């Protein structure tokens, strides 16, 4: 386990010096600075718009980071043969894989924490412009940010899985994007197929859709934006279920990634 932490630290160290990521962090800072100004456009829902903007930017940036880092970290190691050096050390492939994943996950967590801090400031400033009917529930805002983070970890794990058996960047990148799109829509499709509006759809298609529903990650579970934007009460099961689902799904995906990586010839 200690080897996993060493690899995670090395990964975090390398990501911390990546110029592309510095630029992205700069972009997120600019976006957050613009939130109070843009939220004024809503007239009477300044606070709600500010929360919406903050959460949307966070989700967008985090998904971009998760897919970009998840796809490129392992793939780059294999492509540039960093693995020849790292796995030539007394280090198992599973420790290496987990270390790389935890490094990326930790980077996403640190990004989210910094973002959350600045988001609280941006929303607080916006809320002073126009008094909302319901005050911001900060725990809801943090829960929504946490939901995005769980989603990003899961997507990063999916990208890692694709990287373990793909020789090009195409599959990890676009495969994860496809999983993200399908996972975001699967709940709605499932509900539609179980409603009266879909009575004409054949049983075969319905059966196939159901299988996909259970196999694909259900990313809607992590979406807690409505509760955060409108300061609606958030019960504990609503928080625990996505956390357990995310943890179990991510673990299974990583187990699959470890399975493929341990069998791959590093030529």
């Amino acid at each position, binding site marked *: 386990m200690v*080897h996993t932490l*060493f*690899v995670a*630290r*090395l990964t975090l*160290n*390398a990501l911390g*010096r*990546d110029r592309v990521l510095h630029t992205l962090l700069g972009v997120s800072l600019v976006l957050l600075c613009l939130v109070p100004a843009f939220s004024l456009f809503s007239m009477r829902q300044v606070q709600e718009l500010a929360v919406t903007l903050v959460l949307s930017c966070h989700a967008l940036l985090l998904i971009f980071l998760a897919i970009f880092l998840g796809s490129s970290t392992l793939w780059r*190691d294999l492509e*540039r*043969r*960093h*693995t*020849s*050096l790292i*796995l*030539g*050390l*007394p*280090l*198992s492939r599973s420790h290496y894989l987990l270390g790389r994943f935890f490094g990326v996950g930790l980077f996403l967590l640190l990004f989210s924490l910094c973002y959350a801090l600045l988001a609280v400031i941006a929303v607080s400033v916006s809320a002073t412009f126009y008094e909302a009917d319901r005050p911001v529930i900060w725990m809801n805002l943090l829960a929504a940010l946490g939901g995005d983070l769980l989603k990003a970890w899961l997507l990063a794990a999916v990208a890692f899985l694709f990287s373990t058996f793909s020789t090009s960047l195409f599959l990890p990148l676009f495969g994860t994007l496809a999983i993200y799109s399908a996972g975001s829509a699967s709940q709605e499709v499932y509900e539609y197929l179980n409603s009266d509006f879909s009575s004409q759809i054949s049983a075969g298609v319905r059966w196939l859709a159901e299988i996909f529903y259970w196999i694909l990650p259900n990313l809607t579970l992590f979406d807690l934006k409505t509760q955060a934007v409108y300061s609606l009460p958030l019960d504990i099961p609503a928080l625990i279920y996505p956390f357990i689902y995310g943890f179990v799904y991510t673990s299974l995906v990583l187990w699959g990634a470890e399975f493929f990586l341990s*069998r791959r*010839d*590093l*030529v």
Partner: protein
Amino acid sequence: MNAIEATGLKKVFRGKKMQRVEALKEVTFSLSKGEVFGFLGPNGAGKSTTIKVLTGQIRASSGEAFLWGQPVSHPSSRQNLGYLPENPSFPDTLTASDYLRFVGKVFSLPQGELQGKITSVLSRLELDTTMKRPIRGFSKGMVQRLGLAQALLADPDLLILDEPMSGLDPLGRALVKDLISELRQKGKTIFFSTHITADVEQVCDRVGIIVGGRLQCVEPVEELLQEGLSGYRIYYRKDGTMCELPAAREDFPREMETLLSQGIEVDRVEPQRRDLETFFLETVERARYEN
């Protein structure tokens, strides 16, 4: 216990359209403690594949290999190994010091000694001034030397070096040769691949030649050089002029006696031998003919 033990190693790759490529064919050899072994072969002969099997990067289709008695599939077999891959590549945003610190931790080197060891190994490879610079700014030769530094950091008893002189200028090559000789004197076991026969002649105890995935021979370098001695060339002065006399191996004592009895001053004697390169070329040629 042997440092390396490989028995019947076979590796088959599946190419495009499922065609079989037999990269290794029943490769068997062993390396005892303190030996320096040169692994020679033309490009694509299977040198790197053998090394990758030994370091657990790829799995042999059949056969088995052990490092210090431990199966190569287990990471602990690499606990006493320093490995330099061919054309090493590092995460380039890191500094040399960052990477070596990571290597030291994986080898469980004591925290208190780590910095000293890093400084010492970088200094030995003339990289001490670049310790804090990102690796992305390193030249090819510097990257190669950093690869050697990470292999040497934990002071392992076994070193597997895949083309250690590749990408180095003459100064770098001399540095690495010195280093190998120094490690040999310390009793380290070294297995290194190359296609430069002169390097093997200078630093190795034994040489193995692989062609087309099959290990053709494993011979002591000294014996090869002795066997290859065909005769001598005697240079002497007569009436102020330098003369040259070729002598077969068996005629040499008689020729020398004759010259000395005539009171002729012998300037120098040069052995005429079939060098390792000739032996290597003959072996490759023979293997190709047999195949």
